[in-house]
């Protein structure tokens, strides 16, 4: 059960970027991006920042935690 919502897929789509391309840019595997998009994996702060910088979206818009 995930306790956060991930908007990665939405913003990745806006950037017209594939999972493979994003994975390569942030230095992880495509499987990691898939798990992130399904909110099944809680990323490290470094990975979250890397994705945020790559997609040019603030972290709090990418990963929304339930209050």
């Amino acid at each position, binding site marked *: 059960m995930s306790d956060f919502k991930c908007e990665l897929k939405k913003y990745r789509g806006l950037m017209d970027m*594939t999972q493979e391309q994003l994975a390569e840019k942030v*230095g992880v595997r495509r499987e990691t991006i898939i798990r992130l998009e399904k909110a099944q994996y809680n990323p490290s702060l470094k990975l979250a920042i890397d994705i945020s910088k790559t997609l040019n979206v603030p972290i709090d818009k990418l990963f929304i935690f339930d209050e």
Partner: protein
Amino acid sequence: MKSNSDYTANINPRLGWLGLLGFLGFGGFWTYQINNMIFPFCFLCLFGLFGLFYDGKMKHTLKDEMYKDNERKASLKALKLGFGFSYALVIVSSSGIWDIIVTKDFLLIFLLIGMSLNVAIVVILSRFYLYKFDSLEKDNECGY
């Protein structure tokens, strides 16, 4: 640019058959009869080489943070089981029943076999769980 150390080793899954070397451990029964040597029972831990089957299946995988996370989870789960098995082994060994049924020699052989198999089980399970956790992600891949 990723270096080779960022990827898992390029292992042929067929190397897992090296686990059959574990059967050398049963030679301990023979050496015990010949000259009371029980050291060969330690070779039973070579059954752990069967874990190379799973290492081979995951060859040349990028060791990103999720991989390392899964690796930690898999090791922890395997070690917990191994610890439980060790504890059970000690309980059985110290139950006192051995004094009545068999000699202290057999108790030592029992412990050595148990601990060697425990090492093998922990090695195999840690590789198996890592493969299992990691392959979960590959199940539902979507294209874009």
